[in-house]
């Protein structure tokens, strides 16, 4: 696993494969699954001998646990979706807004935040974006008035993967490398990230306050309106009537308890991936017994490719390390990283924000984690630098759509539903809220460290 000097042509080959792999993942020509370019790049680098077999085994062990945890979480999401939980959410959120557009704005942000906390960021985007689209259709607002709700959804859903560390695969993979677990991560990151999310919410509200409609139609009136029969949510009304509420409530309680057990059961020797698998199997079993729906659909819909994607991506990044790119970056950052906790924190957070917006946050965090472990920092500085990188990856990366796969997914879902948002329109909004939120979160993190250490 150590660095060995390489021939120049092999370095160029590695960079070319890395660039091509990242480009194909972000561009997805012909709509190919992102796992295909990731694993293809990994195979080419393995064949060339840049990543030897012992590194491959190490990487597989490293990414398999977090990937299984995320796959199990998405399986839970699929089960809940199949019994109609999220279709009901759209209707319920509008009802709870009680005719106020501002209350709806905050309710949507709360829903997106909780969806990421209890599931994961990509799942949250995939589930909540159609819900928000349904909501903005149901309340029949003007096109420009839809933007506050849509932007609030994607920004909050992505940044909400910061507080507890289990909602994003990039966060999970690095935890073990820097010697953190979910509890120690949350102790360090929860308070500053909540301050960051509150700042982001407030900035979004201030930015969009003139676009948010003060009054929205009452949902009860809308549904009883005979002209409303062909509305997409007319199907929701039907499903609400036939909903098995006991099953509905049992499933939500179970999801919350499983999430809570991630922070309790590891102390008794249970691994997170096994808790996640047990939770997913329990939900599938309950659905099978209650509704007689076999688990076959879950087998088909489960995102098995996540394991292949994470593995392939990590091999590609590891090849960069083996060519010596991390050693070069290390020599540039060594001084600032070892100067003080605050300088290490700001340098890591800003570096990953910049890298993420150039080449996506997953490879950036992987590369950054390898980089900070090579510098030879003490454990405390290493962990502080790692959490700052996650702040950069979950907040700073939102500056451009390229920064996270969740944002690209969001733009794709919107385009498919006839609400295209251009990159420049996205950037104009992000520029007003993301840099400030990033700086506030990093300051809050350093103040929190000063308080607790």
């Amino acid at each position, binding site marked *: 696993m150590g660095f060995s000097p390489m021939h120049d042509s092999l370095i160029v080959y590695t960079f070319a494969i890395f660039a091509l792999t990242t480009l194909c993942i972000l561009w997805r020509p012909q709509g190919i699954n992102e796992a295909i370019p990731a694993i293809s790049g990994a195979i080419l680098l393995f064949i060339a001998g840049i990543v030897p077999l012992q590194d491959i085994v190490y990487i597989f062990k490293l990414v398999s646990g977090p990937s299984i945890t995320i796959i199990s979480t998405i399986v839970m999401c699929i089960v809940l979706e199949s019994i109609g939980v999220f279709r009901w959410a759209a209707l319920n959120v509008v009802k709870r807004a009680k005719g106020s557009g501002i209350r709806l704005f905050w309710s949507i942000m709360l829903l997106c935040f909780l969806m990421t906390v209890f599931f994961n960021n990509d799942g949250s985007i995939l589930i909540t974006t159609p819900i928000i689209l349904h909501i903005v259709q149901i309340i029949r607002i003007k096109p420009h008035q839809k933007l506050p709700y849509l932007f609030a959804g994607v920004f909050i859903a992505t940044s909400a993967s910061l507080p507890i560390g289990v909602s994003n695969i990039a966060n999970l993979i690095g935890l073990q490398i820097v010697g953190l677990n979910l509890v120690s991560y949350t102790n360090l990151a929860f308070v500053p990230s909540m301050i960051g999310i509150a700042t982001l919410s407030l900035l979004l509200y201030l930015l969009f306050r003139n676009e948010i409609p003060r009054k929205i139609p009452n949902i009860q009136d809308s549904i009883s309106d005979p002209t409303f029969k062909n509305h997409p949510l007319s199907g929701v009304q039907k499903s609400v009537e036939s909903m098995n509420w006991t099953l509905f409530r049992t499933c939500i309680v179970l999801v919350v308890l499983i*999430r809570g057990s991630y*922070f309790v059961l590891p102390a008794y020797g249970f691994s997170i991936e096994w808790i996640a698998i047990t939770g997913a199997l329990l939900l599938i079993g309950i659905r099978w017994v209650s509704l007689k729906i076999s688990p076959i659909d879950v087998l088909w819909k489960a995102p098995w490719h996540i394991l292949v994607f994470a593995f392939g991506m990590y091999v590609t990044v590891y090849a960069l390390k083996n060519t010596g790119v991390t050693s070069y970056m290390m020599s540039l950052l060594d001084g600032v990283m070892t100067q003080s906790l605050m300088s290490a924190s700001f340098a890591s957070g800003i570096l990953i924000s910049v890298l993420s917006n150039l080449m996506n946050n997953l490879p950036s965090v992987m590369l950054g984690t390898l980089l900070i472990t090579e510098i030879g920092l003490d454990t405390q500085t290493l962990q502080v630098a790692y959490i700052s990188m996650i702040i950069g990856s979950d907040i700073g990366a939102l500056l451009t759509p390229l920064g996270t796969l969740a944002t690209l997914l969001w733009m794709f879902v919107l385009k498919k539903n006839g609400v295209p948002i251009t990159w420049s329109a996205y950037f104009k909004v992000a520029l007003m809220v993301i840099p400030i939120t990033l700086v506030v979160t990093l300051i809050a993190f350093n103040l929190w460290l000063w308080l607790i250490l």
Partner: protein
Amino acid sequence: MIIFSLLMGSGFIFYQLLTPPTKKAVAPTNMVNKEKRKFRINGVQSNA
């Protein structure tokens, strides 16, 4: 334990957000019919 409690608190809000507001209890039809019969047996005019 604090993290667990915070998560459970958030879980409660999540549950509230997703589940419909509780409706007022409504007596099932068979209970209403039973009450009507009881009124008729006692010779009292029922307004139910």
